[in-house]
């Protein structure tokens, strides 16, 4: 009997068709048609994803094999999908949040010319297609195809307003930094092929194959994959592209640079959890890198004045939390945080889009203030987003963050301490943003003030839906300590992510940790209220200036890597190539020229000279002959 999941290929295929229709027809189609195609295909995929999710929940998984992508010698890389608990969950997030953001975009981008409107939606559909490929792929190569595909769409959408040179540079930067990670990812794939001869998840993670791998191999492979993840998921040292990526339209930031693409690294590691659990070194590296990134980005977010930049650094920081979870073995907590983060961060970005829309394009919060009166829905939903990310129960962020903090606590109190501190910073900078933007008095121009308005329904409805999800989304993972059998997510994912029950803490400890974090977060929010409710802009000094300039990391990279490479290129081009390499060739040419010029002098035209030469050479010839014969 055919599997009921036979139709899963439609889930990525529909957005691909949407991409083709809008991409090829962008000069001919009207905006409503483009919107319909763009949103309709994603909605259809979303409905199918729900159906797939229900099937998978019922215990039905499916590994369709379509054709052999590459088959060379013993190496076979099939074009195949893997529909299981993990991928079906990601399908829901991608198509669900993706659909809301598509709807939001129809209004947010309505001032664009039709051909650019079509271009925008075709890129967006192509992105969803690539992202679906990424999570549905049954082997590392298909995952990698999606992985680079989303990178491409990110590049195209960051540089969507291509007249702006700075935006184009940001787009290139994002692509190139991702490529650095991608190289490591590729080498990991090659290493797997060299050691196991396969890239399929089911075969690589099979116990017989894992037994063939030495610890060193596993460590190398997992570290390389993790380097790949630091590129895509914006971790130290490859995170600096993400804040620049805010050059793209705001819905893009919400979809790609908050909810979906940047979580690809977490997906990949969660998918490979069997491998990662076998290497303690890698686990430690992942945990510490994640924590360091979370802390670093949180400090930078304290001092940013661009509403989107704050959210961007907040995303980097939250991704750091997810890697901390992965590194401490709490894979489910990481996936849980991916989900809740998708809700509240998409909400916050879309909310900021609504603010920017109302402010006629202004993004600097120093010129905002008091927006709560004019933008009621945006104000309330943004507040919900802030509470959710700060982690106040029973909002979604509380449960997922609590799970991460708990796993950090089990690993080591130091990790826990730093993570808790970062969580406090999170609450502080988010509410700084919130209070500066929505409370106090308006600091913009009169014209902006006059123009202030709430966004249309196509924008506010997604906000409301995401706000609801941000409130209740955490209820799928209520810890055992609070409700028996409340942690449905762990149970659901257990076929993919095996649970190790070796480390548990007493329920009383858990209560204490929850209380502590909630209490401290509330303190930080109150502190932010007192400091920022009547905000007036002033010059940053000292440490504040360093933070405002993002610890000067971009400048350091520029001085240490970009400029020397350019100089080397110039040196090779202007000096080495011209003088040394070409010089040798031209030298040979000159030598021949010179020689022939000298030889030419011999041709004097006087018969006597020729005869003399002839005789002389004959003498030489005979002399040589004479000696050789001896």
């Amino acid at each position, binding site marked *: 009997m055919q599997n009921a999941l036979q139709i899963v290929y439609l889930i990525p295929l529909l957005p691909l068709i949407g991409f083709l229709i809008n991409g090829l027809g962008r000069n001919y189609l009207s905006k409503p048609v483009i919107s319909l195609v763009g949103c309709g295909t994603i909605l259809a995929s979303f409905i199918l994803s729900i159906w797939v999710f229900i099937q998978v929940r019922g215990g039905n998984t499916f590994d369709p094999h379509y*054709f*052999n*992508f*590459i*088959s*060379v*010698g013993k*190496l076979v890389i099939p074009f195949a999908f893997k529909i299981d608990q993990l991928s079906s969950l990601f399908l829901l997030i991608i198509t669900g949040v993706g659909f809301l953001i598509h709807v939001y975009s129809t209004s947010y981008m309505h001032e664009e010319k039709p*051909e650019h409107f079509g271009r925008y939606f075709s890129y967006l559909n192509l992105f969803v297609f690539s992202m679906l490929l990424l999570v549905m792929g049954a082997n590392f*190569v298909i995952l*990698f*195809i999606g992985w*680079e*595909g989303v990178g*491409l769409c990110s*590049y195209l959408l960051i*540089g969507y307003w*291509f*007249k*702006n*040179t700075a935006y*184009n*540079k940001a*787009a*290139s930067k994002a*692509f*190139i930094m991702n*490529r*650095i990670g*991608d*190289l490591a990812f*590729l*080498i990991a*794939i*090659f*290493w797997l*092929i*060299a050691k196991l001869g396969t890239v399929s998840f089911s075969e690589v993670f099979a116990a017989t194959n894992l037994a063939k791998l030495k610890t060193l191999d596993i460590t190398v492979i997992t570290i390389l994959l993790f380097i790949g993840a630091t590129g895509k998921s914006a971790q130290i040292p490859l995170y600096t592209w993400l804040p620049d990526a805010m050059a793209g339209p705001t819905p893009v930031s919400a979809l790609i640079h908050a909810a979906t693409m940047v979580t690809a690294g977490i997906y990949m590691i969660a998918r490979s959890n069997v491998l990662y659990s076998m290497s303690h070194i890698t686990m430690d590296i992942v945990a510490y890198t994640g924590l360091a990134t979370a802390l670093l980005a949180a400090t930078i977010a304290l001092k940013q004045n661009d509403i989107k930049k704050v959210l961007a650094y907040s995303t980097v920081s939250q991704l750091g939390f997810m890697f901390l979870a992965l590194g401490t073995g709490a894979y489910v907590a990481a996936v849980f945080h991916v989900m809740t983060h998708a809700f509240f961060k998409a909400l916050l970005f879309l909310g900021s889009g609504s603010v920017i829309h109302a402010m006629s394009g202004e993004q600097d919060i120093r010129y905002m203030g008091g927006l709560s009166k004019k933008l009621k829905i945006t104000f309330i939903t943004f507040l919900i987003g802030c509470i959710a990310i700060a982690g106040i129960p029973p909002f979604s962020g509380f449960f997922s963050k609590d799970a991460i903090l708990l796993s950090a606590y089990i690993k080591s109190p130091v990790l826990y301490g730093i993570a808790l501190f970062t969580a406090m910073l999170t609450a502080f900078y988010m509410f700084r943003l919130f209070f500066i933007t929505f409370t106090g008095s308006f600091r913009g121009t009169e014209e902006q003030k006059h123009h202030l308005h709430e966004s249309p329904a196509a924008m506010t409805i997604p906000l409301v839906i995401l706000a609801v999800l941000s409130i209740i989304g955490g209820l799928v993972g209520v810890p055992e300590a609070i409700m028996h059998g409340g942690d449905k997510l762990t149970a659901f994912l257990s076929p993919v992510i095996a649970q190790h029950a070796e480390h548990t803490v007493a329920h009383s400890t858990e209560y204490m940790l929850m209380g502590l974090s909630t209490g401290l977060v509330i303190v930080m929010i109150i502190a932010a209220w007192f400091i920022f409710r009547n905000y007036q802009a002033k010059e940053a000094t000292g440490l504040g200036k360093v933070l405002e300039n993002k610890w000067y990391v971009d400048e350091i990279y520029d001085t240490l890597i970009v400029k020397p*490479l*350019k100089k*080397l*290129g*110039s040196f*090779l*081009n202007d000096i080495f*190539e011209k003088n040394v*390499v*070409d010089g*040798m*060739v031209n030298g040979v*040419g000159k030598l021949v020229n010179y020689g022939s010029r000298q030889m030419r002098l011999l041709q004097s035209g006087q018969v006597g000279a020729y005869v003399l030469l002839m005789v002389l050479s004959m003498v030489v010839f005979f002399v040589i002959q004479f000696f050789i014969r001896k």
Partner: protein
Amino acid sequence: MIAVLLILVPLLTGFASFFIKNEKTVRSWALFSSLVTLGVSLTGLIWLKDPKYLSHTCEWLPALGSSFSVKLDGLGLLLTLLNAISFPVIFIATWNTPYRKANNFFALMLLGQAGMMGVFLAMDALLFYFFWELALIPMYFLCSQWGGEKRIAVTFKFFIYTFVGSLLMLIGILYLYNKTTSHSFSIQAFYDAGATLSAKQQNLVFWLMFIAFAIKMPIFPLHTWQPDTYEQAPTATTMALSGVMVKMGVFGVLRWLFPIVSGAAFQWGDFLTPLSIIGMIYASLIALRQDDMKRLIAYSSIAHIGLLSAGLFTQNTSGLQGVMIQMFSHGINIIGLWIVVEWIERKTGTRKLSQLGGLAQTAPSLAVFFVIIALANIALPLTNAFVGEFLIFNGILSSYTQYYLWFTVMAGICIILGAAYTLRMVRKAAYGNTNEITGAVTDISLSEKVALGIIVLLIFCIGVFPQPMLDLTSGVTESIANKFEVIRYPVVMPK
């Protein structure tokens, strides 16, 4: 039959072109000829799998032991197909480019195509050499007669380089000829003769012939003729040179070098792999700093060819299979890039990135094609180049050289640099704001759309379904890889 036709059609139509004085007519004639060749090539590829259609042998110079022996095997099918596809695309893309003495121009182009066909088909060393020269000579004239300002000096350099190479190759061929038992130029006799050579003799033959191929490819540091020639030659010729002709070098290694002197080729792999990789990085770094689009693409091509060369010396199935498909993909992609550059130069009068910008506004269709081809140039997955590069990199990592991991990493740096220089080119040419040069440009016309459309179609077809093309050459690849497998793991005979 097919094999002979592939040579005869361009050869005869080429000679005929000399006598068609009307420019429009000779243009159509050349296009017609190249389409017929393409038809023949496709017929051989798809319908006539029977060996009797694919090979042909008759007497040529019996006194010397040389015969007119041509055959289409997987490798030959692949490269003749590339040759056959390239020329119609080139002719369509440059449909609006004016040439003085157009009859001579197109005649020489077709003769060059015939020569390259012969190179890919010859199963006789002397015949191979004959076609090798036949392919080169029209190129000299095309560069020196229709090239840019510095054409004479550049053609001279090009000539010296390739001439030296050819000469060394001829010495190598004659040397081997003397070692054959039956004094024959046939490829089988050469294979047999190669097996009898001592290690020293193998080294000698290897270097004599390899230098010729290395210059043709080119491999660092023998590459300096290439940027100059690509820059100065008329773009149609540059397309033929870079799209098809540089593959003669790779092809020569696969057909005439590896099977004959496998021992020496195996030994020198440890030296030539790092050299190729150094060349890749070197060319990539230089490409980063180019302002002239033609020179940028030329250095990008050198970097890609460096990868092909590194792939050759992996000498294993994955690497060689990658080389096969990458030869085809590189040809397609670089012709696409040249079409874009040619159009830009014709419309704006400049190739300087610093003077361009904003073409995505004035020529949106061009920009779309440009971006897609650029992405193929940096081997994005689901474009054709990804398959080849993936297999080559995989081949390098799984090859048996001592420092394989570091080779892979070093070569991998070019993946990053490649993205950097290619995106920089796209950004500076297509994005940003228009200026007085690019502001008045109108979008591409039908002929360019057709040519670029074919290119893009091929990019995706091969990128998504590479397997048929891989199957085409798997037999050849396996047989070469097996030769090296035997060298790597010599079977100890029981006494």
